[in-house]
């Protein structure tokens, strides 16, 4: 051992090193805590989101679900089992309709998107229940959900009168983007 090569360690250096270790430990702990709070979404929360009354926090929770693979998978499964009706992704190439961008046909409900004649960026999103035996059941729907580009969206539905519910949306609303995405899926419950 060569004791001459070793420098004497001052009290200040020791203090600095100790503080650095302490800060690193704090940062690590904070990161762990953050991950725990953001990733944990209980099944009860997911079910409440689908079946329960709408609250102002719903979209925040939907965003949280969208960024979490497991929660997204669970939420989709819950939606599939509890939704009154589902409109699957569109086979856009198969359509010969000239109104295709304004109309999304489905087995149980159709969606229409029409711009206001005032031309000020207001759109009407109309949900039309197909005239089948299930009309009465589907007319009780209260919320429209959409899954587009890995994101979940929801909108409360007004009363469905004579098989039709109409929602007013401003230009650029995420639900309009979902409507225009042929890969998007819609659910009503």
């Amino acid at each position, binding site marked *: 051992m060569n004791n001459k090569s070793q420098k004497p360690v001052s009290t200040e250096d020791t203090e600095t090193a100790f503080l650095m270790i302490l800060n690193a430990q704090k940062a690590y702990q904070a990161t762990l805590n953050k991950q725990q709070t953001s990733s944990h979404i209980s099944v009860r929360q997911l079910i409440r989101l689908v079946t329960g009354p709408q609250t102002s926090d719903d979209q925040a929770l939907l965003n949280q679900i969208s960024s979490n693979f497991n929660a997204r998978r669970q939420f989709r499964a819950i939606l599939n089992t509890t939704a009154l009706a589902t409109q699957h992704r569109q086979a856009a190439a198969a359509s010969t309709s000239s109104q295709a961008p304004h109309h999304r046909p489905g087995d149980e409900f159709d969606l229409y998107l029409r711009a206001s004649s005032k031309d000020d960026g207001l759109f009407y999103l109309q949900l039309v229940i197909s005239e*089948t035996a299930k009309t009465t059941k589907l007319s009780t729907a209260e919320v429209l959900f959409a899954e587009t580009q890995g994101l979940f969206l929801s909108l409360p539905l*007004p009363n469905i009168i004579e098989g039709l519910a*109409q929602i*007013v949306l401003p230009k650029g609303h995420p639900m309009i983007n979902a409507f225009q995405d042929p890969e998007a899926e819609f659910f009503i419950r």
Partner: protein
Amino acid sequence: MSGYEVLIPTTRHAVKVISITAEAPDIRSVVCLNKTYQALPISAGYEQFVRRPTGIIEKLLGPSAYRVDVSAPITQGDSWQLGLALVHILKHNDEFVDHGGGTLIWASGEVDNQLRVNSVDHIAAKIEASREILQSAIENGQRVILLIAKRNLSDLPSGIISGMAVFGVSSLAESCEAIGTKMPKQLIFSQASATPAKRGKGKALAVLGSLVALVGLLVFNVPFQSLNNSYQYEQSGQLRMLRMEMRDMRRQKNWVATNALYFFEVMYLSAKSKKLASAITIKINAEADTNKQNKCRNLNGLVINAGRLPSLPDKGCKVTFEVTSHADNKIRIWLATIDRTSANTPLQLLKNGAEIAPGQQFFTPAVAIKSANFDLIAAISDRDDAAWRGWFDNLVDAGSIEIANLEMDRLTSTGVGIFQARWRPYNELE
């Protein structure tokens, strides 16, 4: 300064009407909060106030859907009806403005389907909530008119703002007269027809009067507007709206309306459906060597007749269908083939659609037809398929005869032609 601004009072604040826009008929009328794109809770009531058969605005002015933008929320009640009815009339007369008008109208009352103005509650509270804005308008030199139902005159507070003209009215016509605008002609005609003829002008005058009354009665009863709407909906391809309009006409329980609708359905829609159904020829192109069967060769070139046909070859044939249009105009066709071997779960083998001009053809993809219970269904229309494609899909997927009949009725009663060929085993034919 010219033009009219309109205020709709509530117990919390006076709400100014910012704009009114006629929308496409398939939009539900809506009252929006200006700049927020938020539909107000009264929108459902406003839709009923506008659209026939319950609504008066469509009867009075024609268009069936509007969007109204207002400055502040109106959450409940029906007292907005008088104000919004006047906005519609003023807009129709090109006299409505959102600012800088010479006259400010403050109106509160319900309007029923006889166009009577009925009383509402809380008049004093509404005036109090509007006091500031009314006072300001008077100071700015605007003519301010306060319109309420006659029965509400006694509800006016003693300390009412000076400088306003107050009118108690019993009808929409009186309201228009009070503010100095014209009623739409349709309403004037209805009221004039109710005026009794004078007596003692001689026999000839009496006969003439009876004739005029008879013609007037017929004119009043014949649902020209409904028939016109139905025709317009059919022309524009809004077949769902067409069915709703026809249903409303049936509900009127007016014998003239019922008979007029019957003739419209039979002479126009049903005839059109039949004409379209016979406007196509479907020919089978069979691959002769499918399963090395001679019977497939026999199928080649066969023109399919509508109705019930004998069964297909047992081992099946690979075929395409050649569809030729003989229609006068461009038509849209959807064609499907279904294996009905299992009675409850029909198996869809092919669904294909195209738009073809007169004399043109289209070919479907190849499909193997081998069932003894095989159906071919084609729907033909000169209208956009967005309106009827869903009904056709339901018809193809129908698991019971009741559902199939329902969808058939939807299609044929709106002028869509249906071509149906059904192959069945020989023993069933016997």
